[in-house]
């Protein structure tokens, strides 16, 4: 199946990587770990879980009974782990719209793996961003570039530059944390 572009589905897979959870726990952890993201609606959590279950990426881990009504807990299947691994390994196309995906991927990498995984992703993503920034700069220098081309390139470069600052700061933080711990 293809989950391309679905941040929420992959974040749910990431939250389930450390053990079974029911919908409410997934919503709570999502909102805590991605405070910049829009809070998940319960309906969205259950719809996502249903879709992931239909696609064989999660399965029921039985009923759990907390203070409230009984709820179904879900856990990752082997296919779900493969899908999560693949997503974490993919470099995002450098584009302004990829920012929230970048954040989600770093947070999930830190959640399901160690600093090494996050560091590898950050370094690879920085390479991709820098290469794209170089392409856009070359496009601006093209004597045939129109004003519209240059302004569009400026827009993309400004966003890439902001992403690069964040990628570098995150890389520094992850590296520093690894050295300390």
């Amino acid at each position: 199946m293809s989950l391309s572009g679905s941040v929420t589905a992959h974040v749910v897979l990431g939250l389930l990587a450390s053990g079974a959870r029911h919908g409410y726990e997934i919503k709570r952890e999502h909102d805590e770990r991605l405070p910049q993201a829009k809070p998940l609606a319960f309906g969205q959590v259950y719809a996502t879980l249903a879709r992931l279950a239909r696609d064989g990426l999660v399965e029921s881990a039985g009923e759990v009974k907390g203070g409230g009504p009984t709820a179904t807990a879900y856990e990752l299947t082997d296919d779900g782990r493969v899908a999560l691994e693949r997503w974490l390994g993919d470099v995002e196309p450098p584009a302004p719209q990829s920012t929230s995906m970048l954040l989600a991927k770093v947070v999930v990498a830190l959640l399901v793996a160690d600093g090494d995984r996050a560091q590898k992703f950050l370094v690879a993503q920085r390479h991709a961003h820098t290469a794209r920034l170089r392409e856009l700069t070359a496009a601006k220098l093209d004597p045939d570039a129109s004003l519209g081309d240059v302004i569009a390139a400026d827009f993309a470069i400004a966003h890439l530059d902001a992403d690069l600052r964040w990628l570098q700061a995150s890389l520094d933080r992850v590296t520093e944390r690894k050295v300390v711990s």
Partner: protein
Amino acid sequence: MTALLSARGVVKSYGRIQALRGVTLAIEAGEIVAVTGPSGCGKSTLLHCLSAILRPDAGETSYRGERLDERSEAERSKLRRSEFGVLFQFGQLVAELTAAENVALPLLLAGTKRSEARTAALAWLERLGVAELADSTPGEMSGGEQQRTALARALVTEPRVLFADEPTGALDTLAGEQVLGHIVRLAREQETTVVLVTHDARVAGYADREIALRDGTLDPTGLGIAV
């Protein structure tokens, strides 16, 4: 193939501060290379060692396969005048001289006749789009115009290597772009190698590749590192 410029295990300290801790790299002829990293990482010191302004405390620097660090001050000075051009962030033009006189200065120091030096200076000011300012002094120019004049002066001797240390650091975005655009265009036309020191990813975007420094060494997570 011998690199045009290279460093091997270069160490440089200022008192107890170790600015470079064993840097090894190679730069090929015609490349535009950005040396990047945060403030204090040693990138300007590296540029000064590669351009023979500073002599390393340890390690080797070479230009066209010959050791730079073993040459006398007089030899290094001659090399800087004939083979290397240097562009700093600001404050490099002589305030009392006109743009044309500033640009002609390196040629006059090399013994070129005054009339020939002025002709060459005017041609370079023309190429950089500031010909109309030939008889203006730096105080009468904008920051971008001053920097284009300084670039003309760095290139008037047709150096093989241009060293540029944060050349747009004091300029606004568009003036900085003009200077960088000229550097790239002229470097391609003249087949000049460029070593561009910057902390700005957007400036590094003008380079063919990047050498990242951190704490005086090559950044192991950096980009395009040549060792």
